């Protein structure tokens, strides 16, 4: 028996959680977990377009284990979104209500620090997901959130082709005893 891990999206001031482990995350201009065509990103005629932040966090829903540690996140290293669409990432120790970053900054910032291209994080060079909210995480208090918050922002640049973009793959990994 192993731990049951979920990837959950957090929304609103009260960080309402939605299980996205077997789902998709839709980048849009609103702070909600819906996978729909409401509040879409618009190809800009000037400057750039940022989505509302997506806040994700790993969650132990149950199961049996002793310790979880070494949380990491990575992509496949190649954006399938096409020209003009970028995905930015950064971790956070504490939650803040999701918002749309200022287009005065490119790349977008989180807590006044520039975010990083998500596709630079690969299996060989993953994003550390337990350096701010440090592990190891034992089985006390389950169910519970573990590790850093992951904040993602999608950018659409001038001249990007319209339409729904293909989805991408994210992998969350951890050691478990």
């Amino acid at each position, binding site marked *: 028996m192993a731990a049951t891990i979920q990837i959950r999206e957090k929304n609103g001031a009260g960080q309402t959680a939605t299980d996205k482990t077997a789902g998709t995350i839709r980048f849009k201009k609103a702070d909600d977990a819906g996978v729909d065509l409401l509040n879409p990103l618009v190809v800009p005629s000037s400057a750039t377009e940022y989505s509302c932040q997506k806040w994700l966090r790993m969650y132990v829903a149950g199961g049996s284990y002793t310790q979880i540690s070494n949380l990491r996140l*990575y992509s496949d290293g190649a954006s399938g979104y096409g020209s003009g669409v970028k995905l930015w990432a950064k971790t956070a120790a504490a939650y803040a209500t999701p918002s749309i970053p200022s287009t005065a900054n490119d790349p977008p910032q989180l807590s006044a620090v520039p975010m990083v291209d998500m596709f630079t994080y690969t*299996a060989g060079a993953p994003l550390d997901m337990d350096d701010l909210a440090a592990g190891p995480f034992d089985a006390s208090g389950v169910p519970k959130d573990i590790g850093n918050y992951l904040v993602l922002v999608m950018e659409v640049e001038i001249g990007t082709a319209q339409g729904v973009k293909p*989805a991408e*793959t994210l*992998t969350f990994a951890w050691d*478990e*005893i």
Partner: protein
Amino acid sequence: MPAEPFDIHGEGISAVGADAGVLVAFAGPGDARMFRRRAVRMRPDGASEPIEMLVAELDGVRTYLRRDACGRLQVVVTHLDLQP
């Protein structure tokens, strides 16, 4: 690949991993332990792909083991902290 292919007994240098008749015993003179490396891959089609490997770690160097499509135990790679 099964979501939970390995049953691991014990911790540290006395750990033993077993999977459908395959038994992996692991002990070493250094800092050795055996545990799972697990992952959830969120795929573009909305499906969730679980990944699990058995890790035998000696002095920080990891050997990842998993079952191949034929059910045979397979050493994936030996590298420091490589991800599944």
